[in-house]
Structure formats: structure tokens, C-alpha cells
């Protein structure tokens, strides 16, 4: 992808250098965009992507010089939204705000969606969520070691809440494998969404559960994070042990997949067909993301504003997709 992108991107850069001054009206003078831009969210209102899109919209508007509206098209674990998005003309008037990884590859693997991973191009994925193993704060379980000991002694001793076909499930499978836990005998309770899974964990309906860590922040006090599937300490849960540490102590090679990586997505087709317009969108997203007002506002809503850029974001997206493909059988429920 990066090699094929070189030509158009260089041309776009030249254009930017030659004609564009770094202000929004100048960007608009080129003729694009001349009408409002839509942010398509393939989830219902109220979730992380929806909140991110709505919070970013005014700043994007400021840097692109056109109104930015949000449109929700939930359903089918993003298949409906993704399909709809790819049906749009390549004119740059629609971007997606999406948990692109792992939702796009997983929807292809589990829902037989007709698009490919390569059809989508990441502009920036600021939000990186990690799987957390957690239990309700009033459960007697104190550490991840207790969970391991209990499940090794008797895989049926604890019930585990999890979303099917998710990064969390892959992480749980890898975790069981590393500890020699017979996963097929564990009482796994499935939830169709992060929200219901979190409610079940926080309410103690299941003994432990694995789910994205960021969504737990508003009810942080009600849960006990036991393990974070990451190689660096979480700033949100500074006391929670991380997988690499846990694996070192337990004596196995740490293996995990990233949780949801969320942010701005366009169609690869559009990037190739309209390099100038892509350049304008990229610039607007970058400026909005780095805007101090935006960072302050989104920070207050616990939304991420890290700028990784298209290269790093696409790399992360492809890496997660490849990993998901490797665990395709597991995700399909076999």
C-alpha cells in the first residue's frame, strides 16, 4: 500500500507546497470541500466512536471550513455501515469514525462481508484500547494468579463474561493456552456488545470478564482490574498488572492482540482516485487533532487525541488484521 501511495502523495505534497497556505479558507479556495462533510459512525449513538465523532466535529469544521455532521449507521457488527460507506462516491464528502481494528477484519471473518481489509485506509487511529481481565469490586478474587490457579484446578470453577468474535476472546484463548487451562470446559458467557459485558462484570453476574478497558472508566470504582493485555502500563489503571510482566513471572512468552483501535477512516479507492482531496482531509484531521482547544475538550471527555498519522495507523490496522486472520477459526467459533 505504502509503495503504491508514493506517487499521488508526493504530487499532493507538491501541490500543498506550491499553492496552499496553512489556513482553512485557503484550503477551501481549491474547490474542495464546497459542501458539508459527513462523519459516518457504524455504531449506535452514545458509544466511544459516536462520542469521538461528535466531539471532533466542531474542530474539524474549524479546520476544513465546512459544516461537519455525524451520521450513525449501526448494525451487523459494522457490516452495514462499512458496506454503505464503500457504496458512496469517491468525492471525499464522507469519512468514517470507526473501531476499524479489529471490527473490519472480524466482520470479514465472521460475517462473510464482501469487502476486503485493503479497501479501507486509516487517516489516524488515536484511540487504542486494551483488553482488561476484571471482576466486580466486591468479588473475593484479588489477583490474576488466583484466577489462573482456580481455572487450572477446575476450568468450571469461574464463569467468564466475554464478547464472541472479539479481540478479547482471542486474548482469552491465548491466555488459557499459555497457562494450560482447558478453555473448552470454562463456563464462557457471551455478550453481544461491550456495554452488556461490562454491566455483567460490574454487577457480579459473571465471576470475571474480559472486555475493552476504556469503556470501564466511568465505573472504574466498581471493578477490580486483574490484568491488562498490553506491554506498557496503563495510565488509567496504574496499579493493574500488565501481560508482559505477568508472563515473565509465569514463565511464558507473552502473546496478545490489541483491543479496539478507533479513529478516522476513508476508502483506499478514494485515496488513489482523489489524492488532492485526501490531502485536504488528512491536513484537516491532523490540525484538528493537534488543536490545543480540541485536546483540552476531548481530554475532558476521556477521548483520545494522539496523532499517529496514516502510516503508523495503517501499520497497526494491518498488523491486527493479520493476527485476527491467524485466529480466524477461533473467531468463527470452531
Amino acid at each position, binding site marked *: 500500500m505504502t509503495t503504491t501511495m508514493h506517487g499521488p502523495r508526493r504530487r499532493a505534497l507538491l501541490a500543498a507546497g506550491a499553492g496552499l497556505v496553512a489556513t482553512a479558507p485557503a484550503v477551501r479556495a481549491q474547490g474542495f470541500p464546497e459542501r458539508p462533510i459527513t462523519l459516518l459512525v457504524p455504531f449506535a449513538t452514545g458509544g466511544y466512536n459516536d462520542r469521538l465523532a461528535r466531539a471532533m466535529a466542531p474542530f474539524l469544521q474549524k479546520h476544513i471550513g465546512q459544516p461537519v455532521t455525524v451520521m450513525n449507521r449501526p448494525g451487523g457488527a459494522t457490516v452495514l455501515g462499512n458496506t454503505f460507506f464503500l457504496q458512496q462516491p469517491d468525492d471525499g464528502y464522507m469519512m468514517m469514525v470507526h473501531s476499524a481494528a479489529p471490527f473490519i477484519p472480524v466482520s470479514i471473518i465472521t460475517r462473510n462481508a464482501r469487502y476486503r481489509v485493503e479497501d479501507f485506509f486509516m487517516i489516524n487511529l488515536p484511540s487504542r484500547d486494551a483488553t482488561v481481565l476484571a471482576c466486580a469490586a466486591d468479588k473475593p478474587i484479588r489477583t490474576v494468579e488466583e484466577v489462573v490457579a482456580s481455572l487450572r484446578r477446575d476450568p468450571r470453577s469461574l464463569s467468564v463474561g466475554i464478547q*464472541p468474535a472479539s479481540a478479547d476472546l482471542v486474548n482469552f484463548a491465548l491466555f488459557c493456552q499459555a497457562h494450560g487451562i482447558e478453555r473448552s470446559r470454562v463456563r464462557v458467557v457471551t455478550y*453481544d456488545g461491550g456495554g452488556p459485558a461490562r454491566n455483567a462484570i460490574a454487577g457480579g453476574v459473571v465471576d470475571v470478564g474480559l472486555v475493552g478497558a476504556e469503556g470501564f472508566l466511568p465505573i472504574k470504582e466498581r471493578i477490580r482490574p486483574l490484568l491488562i493485555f498490553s506491554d506498557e502500563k496503563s495510565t488509567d489503571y496504574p496499579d493493574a498488572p500488565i501481560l508482559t510482566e505477568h508472563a515473565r513471572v509465569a514463565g511464558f512468552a507473552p502473546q496478545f492482540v490489541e483491543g479496539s483501535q478507533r479513529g478516522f477512516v476513508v476508502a483506499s479507492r478514494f485515496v488513489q482516485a482523489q489524492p488532492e482531496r485526501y490531502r485536504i482531509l488528512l491536513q484537516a484531521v491532523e490540525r484538528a487533532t493537534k488543536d490545543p482547544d480540541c485536546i483540552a475538550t476531548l481530554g475532558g471527555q476521556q477521548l483520545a487525541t494522539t496523532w499517529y498519522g496514516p502510516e503508523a495507523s495503517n501499520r497497526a490496522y494491518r498488523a491486527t488484521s493479520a493476527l485476527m486472520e491467524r485466529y480466524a477459526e477461533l473467531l468463527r467459533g470452531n
Partner: protein
Amino acid sequence: MIDTAAFAGAVAMLAGSLDAWVWVVPGLLIGLVFGALPGISVSMAMALVLPATLYMEFLPAIIFLTSVYTGAGFGGSIPAVLINIPGTSSAVATTFDGYPMARQGRHNEALGAALFASCIGVLISYLVLLLLVQPMAEVVLRIGPYEMAAIGIWGMVLLGSIGGASVAKGLFAAGLGILFGTVGMNTAGYMRGDMGIPWLLDGIPTIPAMVGLLAASQLFALVNAKFIVEAESERRISLRRILAGGAMVLRSPLTLLRGSAIGVFVGAVPGIGSSIANLLSYGEAKRSAADPSAFGKGDVRGVIAAESANSSSEGGSMATMLALGIPGGGATAILLAAFAMHNVIGGPRFMEQSRDVVYAIILSNFAQAAILVVVGTIFVYGASTIVRLPLRYLIPSVLVVSTMGAFAIEGSIAGPITLFVFAVLGWLLSRYGFPVAAVVVGLLLGRLIETEMLRAWQLAGGDPWYVLNYPWAVAIVALMLVSLALSVRRDIRRRRAVRDAASPG
């Protein structure tokens, strides 16, 4: 349990701010209009006005949104009563008795009863919220799959064969509804019955299917009629009779209180909400009545039960949202989004630090319920003029509006197609004497029961006796069996009495 200092702060906040009040009436009206349009749900109405709240202060914004919530909660009952199409999925049970009342020319009373039951339901639910927000949220969070499945089965048993003369046909219709409810991906990630159509991945779109079934079964039956209300003298719109309907609510305090209790509790459970609460409440009212056969033929108690439950769900779902930051359904998810837009994070910390704001929201909802009595009466007065509209104009208009609503809610042609397919099915079913309402009940409850039973099975690891660890679920099922046995015995006795009377000697 009430923090008096914060309470005083809330009163001062509301008394000192005109901003907090100017949005109530517009909010209620927007809610009424969108709620009354078939296909536009409460959460859609709130999503539509959400962008406007970005430019308001935090408290007026939330008050505006909860006004829309309150208005839409009642708005759905207007088309339910007048044309047998629930404006929202939470007004399904309102059609069961509301529409028969309208056809008898008692539309004024039915709408009045619905309005008063809604307002009092909202009042009661916020009163419970004021006193018990924290403990209620704690209890609700602990409700697991066993309890939810028991609630679902309870509803199914109460309403399974609703509206039919023949039990066999009723059960067939309910079974059909449950089958429709299982289309799509189940909670364990398996696809069933999607026939390769991407629009069915999440199951059959419930609201277009429901509107199609109910509209078709009734509107086609009206083909030979000239007006919804046959008798010309009954087509009047009378304020006195609307208020008389309201008075009927006060004369059935037990139905009202039971409906509100069911609404508060069931509405508070995340993922269940008002569409289940109004069915349960209706079923309970019918079961416990001395003359259950009167229901479905225009009994005002049916309207009261359904409406008190669906509007009191509002307070219930606010409990988990305020105390835990967990949205129970679409409407509270939008409220949380509005919180976020104002840089307020809902949840325990918000409850502790901004208790006065929470009280102000609750107090404002008391006021909204009271204002809704007036605004709602005026609205109902205007809306009931459609009984004067000849059916040859009304039926096509309703079909057009329903089709547009179906398109709006799905955002694609999948909505109108579903509406059309289920309209044909609804017509066929009612043509051959199958109760369409039972299909709708199956569609709404089937999915819930299946999901929760599956989770219960997973939780038990396949051990059927595991249910004994859940005394509440066992208690619900036991109560259900006892009440069922009692009503079967009553039915047998009554039938024997009828037979004895018919063949003396």
C-alpha cells in the same frame, strides 16, 4: 436519603433560571409529535434534537432532552389508540384496548386515560428515583440472565395467546413471532435465518415489522368502513370526555400503581426497557382482573396498565444512568452523550459531586409531568380530529407516514420492505383468524428470552440445577406457575358452569 442542602440548591437552581424552564414546553411538543409519528422512536426524537443542546447550558440541555423523552413516551399512545399503530415500540399494549375503545367512539376517554396514566406514571417513577436512586441502581445491576429469562417467560405466559379465540391459533402465532425474533446473530455469535441478506444480520427490524403487522391487520379490515368511529354522533371531540378518561385512571389506583411499579423496575434493567414493561403490565392487569375476558374489547384498565408502565420506565432507566453512568436503552444513551458534550461524565462521581444538579433534573421532571397534563390535553384534542377524517383519506395517509417512518428508522429501503412483507403477513394471519398481537409479543419477547436462556445455560455450564442458586428467578417462575394453575382452574370451573347452564338436566 435526601440531602436537604443539595435539595435546596436544586430548588434555587430551578427557581433562579428562566433558561431551565423555557425549553420544557417545546421539548414536550417535539416529543409528542415525533412520538406520535409511527416509526420514530423516543431515542430517535432525542437524537434529532441532540445537536441543538450543544449550544445550551448543561442543565437546560438535559431538561430539554428529558422533556422530549417525557413527551415522546406519551406521544406513542396517540396513534396506538386512534389507528392501532403504536407510535413507538413501548405503546404496543396500548393498542390492545385503546383501539377497540376508539372504534366504540370512546377515543376521548381512551386518550384521556392514557395521558393521565402517563403523567402519573412519570411522577411516580421520578418520586421513586428521588428516594431510591442508589439502592435501585445497585439491585438492577445484579440482575442476571436467570432473572431476566424469568421475566421474559412471565410475559410470554401472560400474553402468549393474546387476542385469539382459539388457543392453538394463539400459540401458533406466538411461536411464529418467536421464530422471527431469532433471525440474525445470536449472543454467542451464530447466524440464523439471515438468508444471506446483510440487512437481517441484526435480526428483523422490529418496529417496521410491528407496524406492518398491526397496521395491516386493522386497516385492511376497515376497507368497508367509512370512519374509524362508525356512529356519527360519537365522532365528537370533547374536552369533558378527555378529562373523564383521566378520572377513570384515578378510579383504578391499583392498576395504575402496579403498572408504575412494573415500569420503574423493568424499565431500569439495562437492555429490557419500556417495550417489555408495557406488555408485562398489561398482562398482569388482565390476569389479575376479575373479568379478564373484558380485556382486548375496549377495557380502560388495559390502557391504564400499558401507559403507566411505559412512562414510568423513564424514571427507572434514569436510575442506572445517573447512579452508574450505564445507559439502560437508546434514550439514556443519548442523555449520556449530551452529558459528555458538556464535559460531564455521568456516573457515581457525578452523583456525589453534583447532587444538586441531579435533584434539579428530577424536580424538573415532576414539573414536566404536570405540564404534560395541559400540553398533552391540547395536543390530544387536536390529534383526535383524525377520527373525523374519512378512512379513504386516512388509510393512505397512514400508510405513507408509516412507510416514511420505516425508512427513517432503518435509514434504508430495508425498513419499507420489512413493513410491506409483514403487512402482507399480517393481513393473511388476520384473514385466517390468527391473532396478530401474539406475533408482535413473540417478536418482542422471543429475542429476550432466547438470549437470556442461552446465557443462563452458559453460566450453568449445562447443569439444569444451577438455577437453584438464583432464588429470585425461582420465585418468579414459581409464582407464575401458581397463578397459572389458579387461572386454569377458574377457567375450567367457568366453562363447566357455562356447559351446565347450556344443557340443563
